[in-house]
C-alpha cells in the first residue's frame, strides 16, 4: 500500500481481556517498529523487527506483551490480560533498510486502545 496501515483504529476492551493489534508496513520495508504513546507522553519503544526476527525486544513492558511478524510483512502486537495502564495509542512504523539509525521511519495512524 501507499503507507503504513494499522487496525483497528480504536479498540475498547475490558480489563483482563486479550487484544491483537495489526500493522501492515509499506511494501518492501524490512524494518518494523512498535511504539506506545500514553497521554501527554513521548513515544516509548516496544519492539523492533528486521524481517521476521526481533533482535530487540527490550522495550516490551511485561510478559503480557508479545509480537510477531510473518512473511516479512504484517505484524501483530498481542496484549494478554489487559490492564488499565495499557491504555495508550500504539504506533507502528516501518523503514526500508536495517534499523541502523540512519533510516527514516514511516508511521501508521496508530491504534487507540482503551482498557476499561
Amino acid at each position, binding site marked *: 500500500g501507499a503507507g503504513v496501515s494499522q487496525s483497528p483504529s480504536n479498540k475498547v476492551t475490558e480489563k483482563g481481556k486479550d487484544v491483537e493489534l495489526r500493522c501492515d508496513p509499506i511494501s518492501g520495508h524490512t524494518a518494523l517498529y512498535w511504539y506506545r504513546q500514553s497521554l501527554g507522553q*513521548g*513515544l516509548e519503544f516496544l519492539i523492533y523487527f528486521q524481517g521476521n526476527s526481533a533482535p530487540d525486544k527490550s522495550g516490551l513492558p511485561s510478559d503480557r506483551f508479545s509480537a510477531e511478524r510473518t512473511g516479512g510483512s504484517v505484524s501483530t502486537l498481542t496484549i494478554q490480560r489487559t490492564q488499565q495502564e495499557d491504555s495508550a495509542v500504539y504506533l507502528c512504523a516501518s523503514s526500508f533498510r536495517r534499523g541502523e539509525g*540512519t533510516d527514516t521511519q514511516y508511521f501508521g495512524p496508530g491504534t487507540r486502545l482503551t482498557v476499561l
Partner: protein
Amino acid sequence: EDKVVQSPLSLVVHEGDTVTLNCSYEVTNFRSLLWYKQEKKAPTFLFMLTSSGIEKKSGRLSSILDKKELFSILNITATQTGDSAIYLCAVPTSGTYKYIFGTGTRLKVLA
C-alpha cells in the same frame, strides 16, 4: 543512560511569529537525530540530521545540529495555524535499533 530532552514543553504563538524548538540529547555513538511532526496520531517525518552545522530546510521549516554541544534546533518562520502540532525529536541508541523520543513540544499557533 541515553536520553532526549525537548524544550519548551509547550508554546503558544500568533500567526506570523517565528519559533525555535530545542532538542538536546545524550547518546553514545551518535548516528542521527530526527524531527517529526505529530498532528493527530501518526508522526510525519520532517528532517534527519547527521552532520554538524549543515542546515536542512523545507519551506518555512529548517533545522540544524550541533554535535559538539549535543543539541538540535527546529525553526519555523512565519508560522501558520496549520503548524499547530506536537514536534518530536528522536535519536537511535548506540548498539541497538531502539529510537529514543523526547516528550515533544506542543505548538499552538493562534490566528
